Structure formats: structure tokens, C-alpha cells
């Protein structure tokens, strides 16, 4: 194990991205994600040998198109934002998925709707996972639950984006992004997927490349869409990630992602100490959703806990055997329940 540093989530993501060869950052400040652009702004000046480019864009609408531009040249690029800014980026998310542009978006959820609160929430699940933009498009969504995992997934985002020529979202929240903990920073990534067969770099010595998402009649556009669907199917088949904890003997299986999974794990431990048979499924890829994690668990009860009014719970219901076995517990407005609060919910279920 390398040396550990005590680092804030946002800073750790930025550093990991730089080490993953992401030298381009375009962003617009918004709490609780602003430390990511701030980190890049510093690095761009303090580490001249790395040729880091940082641009503060004028709006999120512009920023999401800027990352599309850099991605189109084959360079690794990302932005970081939060709910309101992410909403403004939705047209471009649809565009990037369609055009095959491998940009990475860090979305640090705060409590919506509207301007809301800058505290932790998970109310942008639908937006990220179902796609807040228009049309049949999909975006990979990864959700870490510790700063260590945040660093690793941050790097993986770039690999996946390149592998599938698709944008990838790292979905986290105010709690994890603003939190500090000890982390062993991941190493530098050097191997890259060769993108030269499609990128825009000037057509010297080759046929010219064109990137467009404008349909030219239903037949052409259906074929284009079927191609996209094929890409999405491949991702769905290959990129499902999750972690299960003590589910085999469990009567009650908690389901949670991101910071809530961290709290739920605490609750699980407390419950086990009390002799309650509680397990945990922690989806890491939210799209594709780890339906497989729920196979062979018929008869168990599921308690989905989210910092929302209930969004992932729909995907859980679509994954389990009997949707009637799924219960939900959520808090809103930036309130994060403690392990003890979740334990109380578990007890309520036990009683029934």
C-alpha cells in the first residue's frame, strides 16, 4: 500500500482524473462540486509539465459542449457539476451519447428540486440513470461509496468512456464530495484505446472524419439508432458492477448506493450485532443496473434506502422476483439518516 493522504472527495477525484491522463477540464462553479475545477485551475499552473488545460466556461450549457469538442479530438476530458447545472447539460448528454463522444461528467448531487440546498441528496438518480435528455440514449453511471473507491471509479470512467465511445457519469453527492478521508491515490494510467479512426484532428493522410447526429430520413436514422442500441446492449452485458454483503443468510437485504450505502453498511453492522439477519446490496454501476445482484434472493425482504423520495427503488422492483417484497426508506432536503435511523426502519420491518 502506498502512502495515504487525507483528502477531500472533490480534490481526490480531480487528482485521480489527472493521473488517468485527463488533462482537459471545462467547468462552471457550483456547490458542492467547485473544488474539482479549483483543483484543476491550480494544477494547470503548478504542474506546467503536464500540459493541463483548465477553462471556466460561461454556462453549463456551454461547458457540456466544450467537453464534447475536446472529446471529439480524442483527448480525455471532463467536467464536474451539480443538479441545476447537470439539468442544463442534458441536451449535450443526449448529443454526446449519440455522437459517440467519450467525455466524463462528475455529478455531485445536492438536494433539489430547483436551486434547493447544497446538502447531500440522491434525487438526481432518474436524471442520470434514465437520462434527463431527449431520445433513446444511455449513459454509464458509476456511484462510489468511499473516497478510495471514488478515485478508482474516476479512472475507470475514462476507460469505459473510451471503450464504448460514450459519456460516463460519476454520480456522487455532497456528503462524499465534501468529505475528507484517508485515501491511497491511484497510479497513472497510460494505456489508452486508440481513437484515431474517428477523431477530428485534420484529415492529413487519411479520409476525412465527420461527426453528426442529424438524421437523414427514417430509414437512415433508425439504422443509426439501432447501432446505438447495440452499443448500449454491449455495455449492459459487460459493465454491471455491484457489491453484496452477507446476503445469503439475510432475511432483510438493504439496497443502497453511494454515501447511503456507507450509512447502510453501518446499519447492517449494528443490526447483525443485535442478531438481526441483515445484508446489503450496493449497486456500483447504476446504469447498467445490476439486476443480477438480485437473482436467487426470492423470499427475502428488501429495504431500499435513498436520499430521495424513491427513485432507484423502481429499478430494484424491476430486478427482484416479487416487487411486493420491496420497501423504501428515504430522507429529503439534505437530511442524511444515521445508521441508527436505518436500524429503526429495519426493526419496523422485522416486527411485521
Amino acid at each position: 500500500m502506498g502512502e495515504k493522504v487525507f483528502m477531500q472527495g472533490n480534490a481526490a477525484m480531480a487528482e485521480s482524473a489527472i493521473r488517468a491522463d485527463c488533462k482537459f477540464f471545462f467547468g462552471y462553479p457550483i456547490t458542492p462540486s467547485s473544488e474539482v475545477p479549483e483543483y484543476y485551475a491550480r494544477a494547470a499552473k503548478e504542474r506546467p509539465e503536464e500540459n493541463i488545460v483548465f477553462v471556466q466556461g460561461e454556462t453549463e450549457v456551454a461547458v457540456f459542449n466544450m467537453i464534447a469538442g475536446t472529446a471529439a479530438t480524442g483527448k480525455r476530458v471532463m467536467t464536474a457539476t451539480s443538479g441545476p447545472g447537470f439539468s442544463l447539460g442534458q441536451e449535450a448528454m443526449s448529443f454526446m451519447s449519440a455522437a459517440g463522444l467519450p467525455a466524463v461528467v462528475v455529478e455531485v448531487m445536492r438536494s433539489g428540486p430547483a436551486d434547493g440546498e447544497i446538502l447531500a441528496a440522491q434525487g438526481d438518480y432518474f436524471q442520470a440513470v434514465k437520462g434527463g435528455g431527449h431520445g433513446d440514449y444511455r449513459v454509464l453511471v458509476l456511484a462510489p461509496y468511499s473516497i478510495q473507491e471514488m478515485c478508482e471509479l474516476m479512472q475507470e470512467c475514462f476507460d469505459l468512456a473510451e471503450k464504448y465511445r460514450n459519456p460516463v457519469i460519476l454520480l456522487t453527492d455532497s456528503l462524499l464530495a465534501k468529505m475528507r478521508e484517508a485515501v491511497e491515490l491511484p497510479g497513472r494510467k497510460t494505456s489508452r484505446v486508440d481513437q484515431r479512426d474517428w477523431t477530428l484532428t485534420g484529415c492529413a493522410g487519411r479520409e476525412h472524419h465527420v461527426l453528426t447526429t442529424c438524421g437523414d430520413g427514417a430509414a437512415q436514422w433508425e439504422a443509426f439508432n439501432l447501432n446505438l442500441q447495440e452499443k448500449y446492449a454491449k455495455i449492459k452485458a459487460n459493465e454491471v458492477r455491484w457489491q453484496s454483503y452477507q446476503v445469503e443468510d439475510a432475511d432483510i437485504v438493504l439496497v443502497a448506493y453511494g454515501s447511503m450505502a456507507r450509512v447502510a453498511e453501518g446499519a447492517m453492522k449494528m443490526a447483525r450485532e443485535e442478531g438481526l439477519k441483515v445484508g446489503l446490496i450496493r449497486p456500483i454501476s447504476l446504469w447498467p443496473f445490476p439486476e443480477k445482484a438480485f437473482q436467487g434472493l426470492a423470499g427475502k425482504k428488501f429495504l431500499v434506502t435513498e436520499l430521495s423520495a424513491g427513485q432507484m427503488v423502481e429499478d430494484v422492483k424491476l430486478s427482484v422476483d416479487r416487487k411486493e417484497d420491496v420497501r423504501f426508506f428515504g430522507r429529503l432536503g439534505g437530511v442524511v439518516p444515521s445508521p441508527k435511523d436505518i436500524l429503526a426502519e429495519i426493526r419496523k420491518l422485522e416486527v411485521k
Partner: protein
Amino acid sequence: MKTIYKRPESFTDAVTSYCGGCGHGIVNKLMAELLDEMGLREKTILVWPIGCSVYADKYFKADAICALHGRAPALATGIKRSLPDRFVLVYQGDGDMVSEGMSEIMHAAVRGENFSVVFINNAIYGMTGGQMAPTTLWGQTTSTSPYGREKSSSGYPVNMAEIMAQMPGVCYSERVTVNSPQRIAATKKALKKAFSYQFEEKGLSFVEVLSPCPTGWSQKPVKALEWLEQKMIPIFPLGVFKDMKEGEGK
């Protein structure tokens, strides 16, 4: 036989999707001629807008991307920052630039992005069927100003070349048109200058082209050229509004 005019090499064989007499065609052709003459084709990245020129990527043998409506300058920023030595050419219509993309063009100018922008001002939305643009003239009828654009509810036509000239990040701003052979030649000169400034790293170079839209204006093409002369030029005067001298650039 000596060749007086030949279809530019930078063009593909595709037939355009423009209406007969559309100014887009004329300007596209000038661009292709310049890519040929200036030897730029292989280092060019074209950024096309949504609008009637949406399929222009098919006409050029050059790397190209079609931006979302209004966002071409932002997309181009991402491209140019990544590849500062490539020739990045942004093309926009008036709905695209002045309405949906006002913020993006203004801020490309604020930052002094080092690319060239060709702005086709035809005083109307062509592709979507002839709606009012911010450059529509007072009294001009469009499908969303069916009795003529009115100051009281829709305000004032926007003079982009003048606004751009005033932004410190812009090195060159000229307004030209294509309604006669002479004017077409002048447009080519303006474009050439704008393109060459990019290699001098002077910042954003901007050429506004007053351009006929016979379909949107419900006029025969030749009539449209006259209307442009009589109606548009008085509101959008031709001329160089800024030309940064040697060494003044970024």
C-alpha cells in the same frame, strides 16, 4: 483550354440540400475555394450549426462536426483548446448565433478564442420554416411575425458585426454580402483575411455575410438579391468594423 473556374477540390460530389439561390451555397463554395487555395483542407476542423447548413458536413472533404443548435462556438472552444495548431472554422446562422447561441458567441469573444467564425445573416430562420430571427427587419413578415416584426414586442434587429467589433477578444470583424459578383469577390477576401488571422493567433476573427434566403423571404432568387440590397444593407451596413493591427493580437 485554360480552366477559368473549376469545382473546388475540397468539395465532395454531394449535391447540397439548399434551396435554389441560397446564399449558404455561395459561401460554402468560397470556403472550399479558400481551403484549396490556402492549403488548409488537411488541417481543418469545420464546426457546422443546426440550420439549413446542417448537412454541409457532407459537402466538404474535411474533418467536421455538427454542433447542437447555437453551441458551435463552445464546441469549437473544446476543439481549439485541444488542438491549437489546427484550423478551426465555425459556421453559424442568425437563429443559431444571435438567438440560441448569443451566450456562446459572446463568450468566445470574451475569451478571445483563436478561431474564425462565418456568420450567415439571412434575417430569418430558414430550416424551421421562416420564423423571425433577431436579425429580422422591422416590418419583415415571417411565420412568427406574420404582420411584420414590431419594435414594441420584438425589439431591435441585432447588429452582430458591430457588437463583435467592440469585444476586446475579437481581432477582426467585417460585414459583407454575396448579392453580386463583385460582392462575392469581396466576401472571399474578407474570409481569407479572417482565416489567416487565426494563424497569427490574433483571437477571434468574424465575418458576417448578408445572405439571401429566397424560400424564407418567399421571393424568386434574383429578386431576393435586390431585396437584400434595398432592405438589409441599410440596417446592416457593409464594412470593416475592426481590424487589429500587427502585434495587437493575444
